[in-house]
């Protein structure tokens, strides 16, 4: 058997190569043909170089956003699945995206235009919404004596999702027609950030989450035995659960504030990765980050080239892949 260290290195190199290739190649593809030589030609002033502007203002930030959001959602999915001991959990199961959605809906309906620390209104409101949701879910889960039971957590998350969904429907009802359409597009996800600023803002949050994920890898293995068994294996179960809950929520909240709630990444990628590399979280986590990045970047390329110049939202592409994927899983088990 290859040692864990070897497996981690091989998997990281493999998926890392895939991610790197996607990030390098994706900006070269698009609905418009660009002249790469001209785009990279320094002698042409940037403000006149259309090819360069398409490459560096439209496509590159979009590709990087896809990589960051894909990596974040995939790894957050792994961590939530480990926390809830359920491979069907998603980053959105515990209400993070419902909170983000409510924040964004409110910002759109009431036409908020303030920026917050230089962040435009909708991402700021969506991040604030996800923080509120996480706080409420945690508070509800802790209200029951005995710490963070995963059943109670799940129930709290489902409750919050239901409640916030009702509020979202209400806000949508109050909105006028154009706002409504904008909301619907936000809900399906959009990677066209056209700026490095949201990426730079979200990057520290994602790095913190990834650092905690690295620390959580072994505890997540133990948590899959059940909380009592994990405890007798010598870990502080409550601390590990809290760390998992907050770090995965942070990664999800940051990802959703960049690009909206893109579905299926957080469940398809972990499943595929586990099929390929096994269940050990020390291998699954780095593989998911890298494969998630590559996956979403590629889905976005498909979405923006298939019926150009009309764009298929990336959330639709991930859903089109996700649906049959689960059908296949179901039939396979049966």
């Amino acid at each position, binding site marked *: 058997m290859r040692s864990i260290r070897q497996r981690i290195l091989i998997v990281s190199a493999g998926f890392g190569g895939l991610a790197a290739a996607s990030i390098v190649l994706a900006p070269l593809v698009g609905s*418009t043909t660009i002249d790469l030589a001209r785009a990279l030609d320094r002698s042409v002033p940037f*403000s006149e170089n259309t090819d360069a502007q398409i490459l560096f*203002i*439209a496509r590159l930030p979009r590709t990087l956003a896809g990589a960051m959001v894909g990596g974040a959602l995939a790894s957050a999915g792994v961590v939530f699945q480990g926390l809830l001991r359920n491979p069907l959990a998603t980053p959105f199961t515990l209400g993070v995206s419902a909170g983000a959605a409510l924040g964004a809906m409110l910002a759109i309906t009431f036409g908020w*235009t303030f920026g917050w620390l230089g962040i435009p209104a909708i991402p700021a409101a969506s991040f604030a919404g996800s923080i509120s949701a996480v706080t409420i879910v945690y508070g509800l889960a802790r209200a029951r004596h005995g710490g963070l039971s995963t059943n109670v957590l799940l129930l709290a998350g489902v409750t919050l999702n239901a409640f916030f969904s009702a509020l979202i429907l209400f806000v949508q009802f109050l909105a006028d027609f154009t706002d409504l359409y904008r909301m619907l597009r936000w809900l399906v996800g959009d990677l066209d950030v056209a700026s490095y600023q949201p990426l730079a803002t979200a990057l520290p949050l994602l790095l913190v989450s990834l650092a905690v994920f690295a620390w959580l890898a072994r505890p997540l293995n133990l948590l899959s035995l059940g909380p009592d068994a994990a405890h007798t294996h010598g870990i502080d179960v409550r601390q590990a659960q809290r760390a998992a809950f907050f770090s995965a929520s942070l990664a999800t909240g940051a990802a959703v504030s960049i690009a909206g709630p893109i579905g299926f990444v957080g469940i398809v990628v972990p499943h595929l990765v586990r099929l390929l590399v096994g269940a050990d979280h020390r291998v699954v986590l780095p593989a998911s980050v890298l494969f998630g990045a590559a996956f979403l970047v590629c889905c976005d390329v498909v979405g923006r080239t298939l019926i150009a110049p009309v764009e298929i939202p990336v959330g639709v592409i991930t859903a089109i892949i996700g649906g049959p994927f689960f059908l296949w899983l179901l039939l396979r088990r049966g």
Partner: protein
Amino acid sequence: MIKNRAAAIAGAAILASAIAAQQPPRIISIIPAVTEMLFAIGAGPHVVAVGTFDDYPPEVRSLERVGALLDPDLERILALKPDLVTVYASQTDLRQQLERAGIPTFEYEHAGLADVMATIRTLGARVGRVEQAEGLAAAIDRDLDAIGKKVAGRRRPRTLLVIGREALAIRGIYASGGVGFLHDMLSVAGGENIFADVKRQSVQATAELIIARRPEVIVELRAGDIPAAQQKKEIAAWGRLTSVPAVASARVYFLTDPRTVVPGPRIAEGTGLIARTLHPEAFK
């Protein structure tokens, strides 16, 4: 636009009989463009209720509101005992319910600029104001022609007509496609729609598309009051796309006048506003 000629004739007959019976016909209009048309052709006194977003002429502000596209208040509409109700073509449920109640409907759908005049004429026939409608439609046609003449022969700048986007960000941009009254207005106003090839009324424009199509002018149509300071910030949000000619030459404009987005009697004025923005020299 009338979909069913039989219904039109029946409706006109009912209205005619109502007029003949010395009961003034009661009209409810939840479509801002159609409401304006009704008032402009002299049927204003017959309008007993309007939609949530109706704002012109000022008389409508004192009228009762019965909802709009998404939330028409059927009970209230029925309680007002109208003789005609204007509905959007997509409001099939509402239309069926009104039909069952024996209330005639006038169906409307956003379309091209020429359809505005056609709708005015059809509406005029429907409410027994044929002459006034004809006069109004002809006047609008004349005004549009005049605008066209003013800008004729001038170079038509490539124009991006934005109808909505996220605040302070170049995201979620909705622009007029190559079909519809906004596109037609732009043409009359002497502009070349960069999305003329997209056969849809609206296009979600990505940064890449905008950079690639290099508009020389960007016109943002917004309804509602936006303070000047806010407008400046919004215009500055385009600043990142420096290779776009419109940004480089500072030809990014905000128009918050509702006349540019309501396809009604004042559409020629709205077109004129756009034309002045594109070709200021032609209007000195």
